[in-house]
């Protein structure tokens, strides 16, 4: 019944099957929306946050989705600025994932702040010294850029494209996309960095605090770098999941291998920098404030050295090595393991840089504070996931997202027809 909207020549499941899937995911979405309204109308007492945990699950989710959404800007940078043309096969999808991630981040922020109706004060009464101000400006601008990047793809829908104006608009937007990609990369560099800066500038919190370059703490650069490194992992992971669900090959191996390779080198270089940063922090910064490294990883029921080792070695060094090594990179199993580990690694890094900071006591007579999110927090955090699934499903169904789709599935279609 929606055949007219489906890209020409593409095979899609029947509309009822599609709707069943949407309804199931939609139910989860509604659960999240319900929790969201609870938070808005009853206030943040609906959460398990407290005065020790001003930042908690949501801010982690925010940082995490922005980090994994980094695939959009980095792929765009490579495609449009460094002219890595092979990536044209995945750039649309990277942009959609980025769009989902960034819109989710904005939504979570709108729930997270105590006075959502005053959220715009961050622009109106901006404090230029605050990392969060920088985040807000760059995040909003970059979201606009992502929208602009997403529009041509939407206009390529079979029906929309019939309108000459939309057709030409889409065409011309593709032509100038390099400008937006450059803008996006620039903005991303700053807001990814500023998100790292959010933690790094807190000189009252030795676990977070980092020295740095001029006004930017090292976490500024580490966050940008890690987003560029692990973002593509997430793009690849979502591509893989989409391929499994649709039962189709959507992106050619060559593109996947290339992106994986780039990601692998980025991860490896990032993790070297991260290790140097950690060592410097542990041996120089922290002792100068009177702390031993063990202070941050002992005397509590959750945060031990395991979290550091998991983040840096298991989910940093390992995926980096797996992806720079040709044989493991091109082996679908090890590659998938690597990208999964990578995504976990960057999320774990964001967790540590939000929640562990809040957990660690600073005053000698203070105590560790542990926290378990309320269902409202969990539901509102899952909400963007459900929303993302629906948006991807709709986009995949009605838009020519994957340029290689028809070509890669020709034989399969032929086989099916026979």
């Amino acid at each position: 019944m929606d055949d007219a909207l489906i890209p020409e020549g593409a095979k899609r499941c029947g509309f009822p099957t599609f709707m069943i899937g949407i309804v199931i995911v939609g139910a989860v979405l509604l659960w999240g929306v319900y929790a969201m309204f609870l938070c808005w109308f009853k206030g943040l007492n609906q959460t398990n946050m407290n005065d020790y945990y001003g930042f908690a699950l949501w801010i982690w989710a925010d940082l995490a989705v922005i980090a994994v959404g980094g695939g959009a800007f980095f792929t765009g940078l490579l495609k449009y600025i460094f002219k890595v043309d092979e990536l044209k096969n995945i750039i649309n999808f990277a942009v959609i994932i980025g769009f989902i991630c960034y819109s989710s981040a904005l939504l979570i922020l709108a729930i997270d702040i105590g006075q959502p109706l005053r959220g715009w004060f961050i622009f109106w009464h901006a404090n230029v010294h605050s990392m969060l101000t920088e985040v807000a400006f760059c995040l909003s601008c970059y979201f606009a850029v992502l929208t602009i990047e997403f529009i041509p793809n939407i206009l390529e829908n079979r029906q929309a494209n019939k309108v000459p104006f939309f057709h030409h608009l889409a065409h011309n937007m593709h032509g100038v996309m390099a400008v937006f990609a450059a803008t996006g990369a620039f903005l991303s560099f700053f807001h990814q960095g500023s998100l790292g800066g959010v933690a790094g500038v807190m000189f009252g919190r030795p676990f977070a605090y980092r020295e740095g370059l001029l006004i930017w703490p090292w976490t500024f650069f580490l966050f940008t770098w890690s987003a560029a490194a692990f973002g593509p992992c997430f793009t690849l992971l979502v591509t893989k999941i989409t391929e499994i669900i649709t039962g189709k090959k959507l992106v050619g191996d060559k593109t996947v291998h290339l992106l994986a390779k780039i990601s692998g080198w980025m991860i490896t270089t990032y993790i070297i920098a991260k290790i140097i940063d950690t060592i410097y922090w542990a041996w120089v910064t922290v002792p100068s404030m009177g702390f031993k490294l063990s202070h941050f990883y002992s005397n509590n029921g959750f945060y031990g050295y395991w979290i550091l080792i998991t983040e840096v070695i298991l989910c940093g060094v390992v995926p980096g090595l797996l992806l720079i090594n040709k044989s493991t990179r091109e082996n679908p199993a090890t590659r998938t393991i690597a990208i999964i580990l990578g995504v976990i690694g960057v999320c774990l890094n964001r967790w540590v840089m939000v929640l562990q900071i809040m957990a660690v006591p600073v005053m000698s007579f203070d105590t560790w504070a542990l926290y378990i999110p309320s269902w409202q927090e969990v539901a509102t955090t899952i909400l963007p996931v459900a929303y993302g699934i629906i948006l991807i499903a709709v986009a995949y169904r009605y838009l020519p997202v994957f340029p290689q789709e028809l070509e890669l599935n020709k034989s399969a279609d032929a086989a099916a027809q026979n």
Partner: protein
Amino acid sequence: MIENKKAHKFGMVIDLDKCTGCGACMVSCMAENNVPFKEDESNKKDSITWMRVYRLTNGKSFPETQIAYIPRPCQHCGGIGDHGHSPCVSVCPATATDYGYDTGIVSQIYTRCFGCRYCMGACPYHARYFNWWDPKWPEGMENYLSPNVSPRMRGVVEKCSFCYHRYQLAREQAIVEDREIEEMEYQTACTTACPAGAIVFGDLNNPAHKVHQIVKPDPHPDPLNHKVVGKSRNPKVFRLLERLGTNTKVYYMSDREWVRKAGDNYLKGEWENVKTHHGASSSHG
């Protein structure tokens, strides 16, 4: 700032050996500043107490045990080098908390705060509190609320202001009478309430004020840690987490070494080296 008038730097020194942990300062603060209360306040992680009294012990067993109570208002940090970039002020995205260069007081503008809580994360003293709930008073009880401090709405951060409204009232009076504010004219509610007289409040920049005389703040950066300015030259006086360079304006005083040591974090052996170091001048002389 008027150029020929020297800026104030209001601060306090709390004698921890005099503090009995009676809680009068906490209640005086709550009553003065319209702090709300709720049915269960036993979870101290969501209980708004601008002035909170921490209890710490020396860890020994009875009868060798010793307690120290540490009253903790907002520390009104001057930030690294005491340039006014407090941990919280520098991170607030909406300029809802600000550093008063003429008073040294860190303010909070409730109507501008949009509740991002970044400042709370940045504050190692947990001096900032979020209004998780709408403030509610039992029927009729809102009759005792003071108009000098506006009650806060749900969703914003609040904290101790060194009773800034008292400063404003005293300043207005002084301006009308064309004179400077007297030491006793501007005192915080906790200071005046303390039955043990453990809190001394005044202008750290004014040598005539008692707080200055007790603290003897060193105007020069600490030669051992250039982030630190205003270190006390009184060997009994210390600040909380001084090494971080927060440059707080709340000083503490104790004869007991274990109490002074608890004010900051020290690596093994460090305390023995620093416990006699008090500001640049004493280390030079």
